[in-house]
């Protein structure tokens, strides 16, 4: 945790809303990105983003600073995302269609590439939560194994084994499509 962030957390713990406002400004993009990558929906990611900071403010005094503030914040984000997914019973296709349109409209990728991306999104969305979340954190968010273990509240070895399994599953699901190509 950077020194500035530590000071801001200390001030925010004492009820300083200005300090907390600065913490939001520092972390909000990463929180939104993580929520979006887990949920695959921009509106839901924005809701989770706000809720994460509200929860963080409410339980800031419980933050013991044995982990980085960002790790603690992202743990809240992951938990909120997973509970939202359970509550709403996310379908795999619903966000994917939305994303496909976004990709087609927002880039100059050819249709073939767009199809591949859609297949990958579907394959990712089809992974169980306990396999997908480590994959998102490692391969999309570039987190270290230790950070992932801190966010998920498990051991580094558990993260390694989950990642190995999720990568194998992803390759397996993408294989038929790639063989055709």
């Amino acid at each position, binding site marked *: 945790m950077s020194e500035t962030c530590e000071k801001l957390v200390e001030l925010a713990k004492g009820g300083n809303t200005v300090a907390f406002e600065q913490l*939001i400004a520092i972390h909000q993009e990463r929180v939104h990105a993580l929520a979006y990558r887990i949920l695959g929906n921009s509106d839901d990611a*924005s809701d989770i983003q706000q809720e994460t900071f509200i929860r963080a403010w409410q339980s800031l005094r419980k933050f013991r600073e044995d982990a980085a503030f960002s790790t603690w914040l992202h743990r809240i984000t992951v938990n909120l995302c997973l509970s939202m997914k359970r509550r709403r019973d996310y379908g795999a296709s619903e966000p994917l269609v939305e994303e496909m349109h976004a990709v087609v409209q927002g880039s100059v990728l050819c249709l073939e590439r767009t199809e591949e991306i859609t297949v990958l999104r579907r394959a*990712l969305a089809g992974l169980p939560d306990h396999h997908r979340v480590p994959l998102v954190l490692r391969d999309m968010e570039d987190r270290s194994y230790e950070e992932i273990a801190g966010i998920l509240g498990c051991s580094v070895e558990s993260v390694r084994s989950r990642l190995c399994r999720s990568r194998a599953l992803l390759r397996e699901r993408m294989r038929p499509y790639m063989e055709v190509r």
Partner: protein
Amino acid sequence: MKRECDRIGDAVWEYVRFGVELCEDDRQHVAECQECERILAESRRVQGLMKEVSRVPQASDCTSAVMSRITARRRPVWGYAATAAMMLLVIVGGLIFLRPHSVTQQIAREVSKPVVTAPAHAAAPEVVQDQSANRERIEAKTARRRSAVAAKRPRRNRRPQARPAPQQRNEMENPASAPEQIAASKHRPVMVAAATWSNAPSQSSSCTYTETNETTGETSICKVEKSPGTVTIFMESKPGGEKLPQKGI
């Protein structure tokens, strides 16, 4: 071999994604194994796609929304605190207000119960609660006499008659000289009487407690008779100047 390929597959993924070098053995295995070669190709392709998938739309600034929600939630805390304090005040006030009544009721309930204290070495005495015919007759008579006396004397002289005679009081206050003690309470606090005697508990015994009001001359008599296993209490009040009966108190 398949297990080894799975292990190396993860290392290959890390190599493609983060540039983590493979060890010499793994590198040699990948060069010789068709399965691992295919894994390497798949990993490259999937990770190329994952860069696209990882793109995130621009997040909107949520600072003002979060801060407004935080401040909106903070305000009512004082309201809740004030409400809780008021409720606590009402509850405590109610308890304080009700407490004397409940204590009075409890005392009245306790007083109305006959209580007998017996020495540890004796069997628990049975209280004859109601010598009803005898007692009611005596009480009715006492009440009539009291009201007659009260009508005659000035109001300021009326006061409860609870002080025992000096000799009796000495007996009550000195437990060493009275190894056995019986305390009995009737349904009115003014009728409380206490007596001591020194006989052996297995034998029949009795004692009389007498009090005379010096102003009115009224005499109150309490007689406690104890036979093995039974305690009987008689009470009577005589107006001033009347001679006490010798028997049947």
